[in-house]
């Protein structure tokens, strides 16, 4: 455990100086740690665990400059992992408050549902920032690849991918909020 801390912290310090190889090694090692951490704590299945691992990796990436280099790394990593776990459980709690008996009504809609869904999607998309909307439209509706979108918009592919991931997540949340409200 102590050896892991020393090795991970060394990678982190090199990564924070801008070293891609060290950063990649760090993220891979952290990915395994996170998979174990979430695997032990979530009964929900592999998909949930992998979602959370990715969520936490993105958080670690975007907040990596909050790490105090005079301190050990693992408490910082696990504090983020724990925060994302609690965040996930809170969202989950919101999700399971949709009463079960309503599920039948949701399924019993007629074929106008598809058209409605398209309209709803547009409405939900309209709530997102313009850049995010464009990425989701291009990739998920028009079927372009993230690297095409990146080239066209003059952004890095990673920025597009993270934007897509975040956008879809926000969309999912909006959808759930909407469903919750409709249920009330």
């Amino acid at each position: 455990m102590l050896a892991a801390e020393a090795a991970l912290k060394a990678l982190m310090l090199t990564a924070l100086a801008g070293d891609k190889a060290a950063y990649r090694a760090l993220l891979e090692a952290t990915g395994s740690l996170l998979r174990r951490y979430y695997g032990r704590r979530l009964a929900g299945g592999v998909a949930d665990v992998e979602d959370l691992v990715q969520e936490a990796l993105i958080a670690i990436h975007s907040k990596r400059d909050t790490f105090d280099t005079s301190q050990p790394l693992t408490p910082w990593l696990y504090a983020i992992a724990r925060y994302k776990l609690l965040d996930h459980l809170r969202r989950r709690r919101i999700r399971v408050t949709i009463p079960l008996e309503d599920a039948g009504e949701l399924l019993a809609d007629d074929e106008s549902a598809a058209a409605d869904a398209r309209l709803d999607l547009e409405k939900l998309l309209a709530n997102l920032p313009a850049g995010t909307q464009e990425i989701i439209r291009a990739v998920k509706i028009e079927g372009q690849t993230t690297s095409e979108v990146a080239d066209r918009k003059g952004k890095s592919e990673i920025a597009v991918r993270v934007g897509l991931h975040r956008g879809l997540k926000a969309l999912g949340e909006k959808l759930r909020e909407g469903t919750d409200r409709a249920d009330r």
Partner: protein
Amino acid sequence: MQTDDLIANLSSDARPAGWKSARMRLLWPLAIGAIASFAAMDLWLGIRPDLSHAMTTSAYWMKFAYTLGLAVVALLIVMRLARPGADAARRMKLLIIPVGTIAALTAFALARVPDGSREHLLFGASSAVCPWRIVALSLPLLAAAMAGMRRLAPTQLGLAGVAAGLLAGAAGAWIYAFHCDESAAPFVAVWYTFGIGAVAVLGGLLGKWLLRW
């Protein structure tokens, strides 16, 4: 997206990064919030006309030091709580310095005067408006502290919100002191602290929602 792809993508984005530039994400909004709050104080209430004379009295510097001292300690706490896994307990203990000092000055001031005149030391002439003006002047700072903190990585949102509120309240009170002409330590200890505390409570309530990232 596969996790391996994500890692490949994230690692290709490696750039030099560190706290020195990260903390500016909090400090810039705070500076702007402080300017907005000061401008609001000047336009709405006005700087006290006798400021240059007041600056020669110890009462003025007592208010100045209490509010600024609280704000500085709160900023230190906020900086800790904005970083995952950091322990803010030691810095929280520093709060005892400004609070203990004002409490001692209050006890001293109250003990020194005859029985009938304590009421004036406690209530002054503006106790009914003082806390609420402090709350109002703190709002731009509270918005700034929340926005800045959210761009860092707080993991205890309620506590982080209280600390951000304490910072905003203390800085707002410091700005209010450019207008307020009360000079008794008991007044400051009660009504300034009440206003600052109200902002801290508000920060705690809002933090749970606003600080999510």
